């Protein structure tokens, strides 16, 4: 009986959260209708993945279907030529984006959570979901709360450092003295564009038996894209140290984003160096069919001779079929190959179904 009551209370709490969200959205929507001073544009994206995953080491084959977590509903807002903003919610009550941006004479100031400067999107790999080779050679710092300044193609942001160190134990104290810094320069030249960026963050492990230890992370990245008629080619390359605290890395073939972190061996911090790249070619045959093939590679080497070096590669081919504006089916077949003995080999095939509105 008590369990039932608890269940109902949990359900009520979820319902309340949902109702608060719905009420908030209704309020915002109502305000949008009446507030002629601001231009609101609401949008959404519903995505379902249907894939068969064949794991070689685990020796299993599973059909998986589900609403993708990156389905969303949101709005962009224009208050004036100088002041814009937006928000975005995911499938749970998870805030994906919430930001305001003020455009002043020479540039703009953004406050809030959205994609940071170091995000290069050259691949459209849909398995994962929408993995985009991000953890197998891609450059992806994700969405974070930040203060960002942008001047033309140059942007720089201050964001909270991530403080994960493998095997450091629950009792280890962490001290952060500086925000993480990300900067990127983007340039568009007719049919060619490129990105050049970097990220740096640091924190300190305190009170270990051997004293305090700095854990530094950095990434330097370059990406470019060009097009010739219906064909476009893009890719990126990066080098870094302890990059797990900046962007995802998965070198075990399982696409779990849990590699690239500094390691603690009980006496000292073991840094690691990583390198990765991706190369993607796509062709848009017409308004209905587009084709893409991509390859990504990443490797990580633990410094000081401890631990295993590791590498991964992933490749895929796909076709995006546009049934109507905003309605897409993307069949795809691909592989994640952990390379080393014991690492996973994941073959997958299936499709992503998506409606943007």
């Amino acid at each position, binding site marked *: 009986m008590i369990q039932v009551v608890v269940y109902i209370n949990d359900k009520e709490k979820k319902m309340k959260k949902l109702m608060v969200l719905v009420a908030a959205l209704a309020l915002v929507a109502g305000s949008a209708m009446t507030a002629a*001073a601001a231009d609101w*544009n*609401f*949008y959404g*994206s519903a995505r379902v993945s249907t894939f068969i995953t064949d794991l070689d080491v685990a020796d299993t084959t599973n059909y998986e279907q589900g609403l993708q977590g990156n389905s969303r509903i949101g709005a962009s807002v224009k208050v004036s030529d100088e002041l814009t903003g937006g928000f975005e919610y995911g499938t749970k009550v998870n805030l994906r984006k919430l930001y305001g941006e003020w455009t002043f004479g020479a540039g703009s100031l953004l406050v809030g959570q959205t994609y940071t400067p170091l995000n290069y*999107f050259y691949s459209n790999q849909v398995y994962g979901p*929408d993995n985009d080779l991000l953890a197998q050679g891609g450059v992806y710092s994700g969405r974070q709360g930040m203060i960002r300044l942008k001047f033309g193609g140059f942007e720089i942001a201050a964001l909270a450092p991530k403080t994960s160190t493998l095997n450091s134990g629950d009792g280890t104290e962490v001290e952060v003295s500086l925000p993480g810094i990300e900067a990127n320069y983007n340039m568009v030249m*007719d049919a060619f564009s490129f990105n050049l960026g970097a990220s740096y963050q640091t924190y300190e492990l305190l009170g270990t038996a051997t004293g305090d230890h700095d854990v530094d992370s950095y990434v330097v990245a370059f990406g470019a894209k060009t097009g010739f008629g219906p064909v476009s080619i893009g890719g990126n390359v990066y080098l870094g140290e302890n990059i797990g605290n900046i962007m995802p890395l998965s070198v075990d073939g399982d696409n779990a984003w849990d590699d690239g972190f500094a390691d603690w061996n009980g006496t000292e911090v073991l840094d690691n160096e990583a390198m990765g790249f991706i190369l993607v070619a796509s062709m848009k045959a017409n308004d209905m069919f587009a084709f893409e093939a991509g390859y990504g590679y990443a490797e990580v080497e633990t410094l000081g001779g401890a631990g295993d070096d590791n590498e991964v590669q992933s490749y895929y081919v796909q076709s995006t079929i546009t049934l109507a504006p905003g309605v897409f089916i993307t069949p795809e077949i691909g592989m994640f190959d952990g390379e080393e003995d014991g690492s996973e080999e994941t073959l997958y095939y299936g499709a992503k179904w998506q409606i943007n509105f």
Partner: protein
Amino acid sequence: MALTLFHSNQNTRSLALRSRLLAALTGCMVAIFMVGATIPAVSAAPKTVAVLPFTMNSPRDLTFLQNGLFSMLSSRLSDSGKVEVLDRATVDAALAGSPADLTQDRARDIGKGLGADYVLFGSLTHFGDSVSLDAAMVDVTGDKPALTFFEQSNNMGDVIPLVNTFAGDINRKVFNRSIDNELYVQPAQEGPRAPGGFQQSRQGGFVNLQQPGGGGFATHLSLDEVITAMAVGDLTDDGTLQVVAATDSTLMIHRMSDSQLVLEKQLEYSSNNRIVALDIADINGNGYPEIFVTSLTIHLDGLQSFVVEYNGTDYVTRVDNQHYYYRVIKDPDGSQALMGQRTGNGPFDGPVYIMQAGGTGYTRQKQVRLPRNTSVLSLAKGPVTAESMDEYVMINRFGRLVVANDGGSEEWESTGKYGGTAHVWLMPRNDPDGSYRERVYIHPRIRFYDMAGDEKLEILAVQNNEFGGGVIGRYKRFKDGNIQVLSWNGIALAPLFQTHALQGWISDFAIADIDADGNDELIVSVVTQTKLAILSKDKASSIISYELVQ
């Protein structure tokens, strides 16, 4: 019994008589009271109001608005026989040599000097998009307290409602007069006649009048395709005009015959093109006008524009794979200039240049200073706020009509939305999902033309209306469109005429005498069906025209 009845009848008649007398007496008393109450008002001298020019606190030259405020307040306060507003020249003469900052005491002194009963003065402060109207109406005798007013808004376009509110306060509190805001207009002057199939607007608001006996248009062409752009010109230099209609990757050259556009030549280009704009002008001066074709790549994130020209026997491509948006702009002096905008980060980003023919192609001659968020595709040049001025009018990225001076500074921005097409540019990816790119929509052309035949240029702009007001969804769907004719009214660009709403969306328009009848026509390409599903065959467009009889 009979006697009793007689007496009873007598009493009844007496009562009725008394009632009539009482009613007459009451009526007379009310009439006398009303006349008595009215006589002083009728016999009183009209009150005189001196409206002093408002102090304009703005980084921009707002002389036009200062003059407009004077005109608006004069018309709103004037009441024949009761309230007279002194003319501007009298006020300016009295103010000569006066300090700029006015106090209420100083205003009373000026009022005494002018023989006015009331003095109205104030200031308008404009910063960014914000505007504040601060004013006071002082009784020159000092018997009544000053009526003060201050209001602010985040929109320059709200000045007129603010003035209406202020004038309403004065009329109600000082002159005991109540007038609806919509009546705050000067007596309707004989405005320009709406030509052809245009609806006519009226000062003070846009009136949706259906023009009796007119309003029709002629349909010259219907296609099972989406006409993405259109232009008119004498391509073969034979004295007759041709209408060029574009689809994604095709140019169709038509000639008028028996009120129908007959296909003369169809030019097929790479299927990777997505043509979004056309213009025709002889920029290289060889006698054959060029067709400037602005084309996006099939990826909708790059440009591959090209130029086509008749060489005496056939149409040839002069240059291709150009990373420019092209627009031919007619200068106020009648000359034509080719403008080019570099790719940039989108259609509203790259620098705009005046281009000239050079070598085998077209080269940049001079960069034009324009406000941010400008697209050359929806840009026109001509006089707006003053006949002598060279100004630019544009529809910016956010669908607002903008007036800018030749220094690139914005002078005015509309609150309503204009433009809108289904032509989309995809911004660089900022999301792991490749299909989820920010969509920036391109606006159709705008241009100057003397619609009223009064040698004053009006502005023609397309207004395509989206389902849901454009609030919901990333994919534009249009329910109808019209072309508005706008003119500067001293405060803002206000609509004079508009075409009847056309179902679908207007992709382009031109003005030319395509039927060679001596009168120009407004030629419009309207897309009535856009292909919504990949397997459907539901594309349809028409080219129609309105006769512009002046």
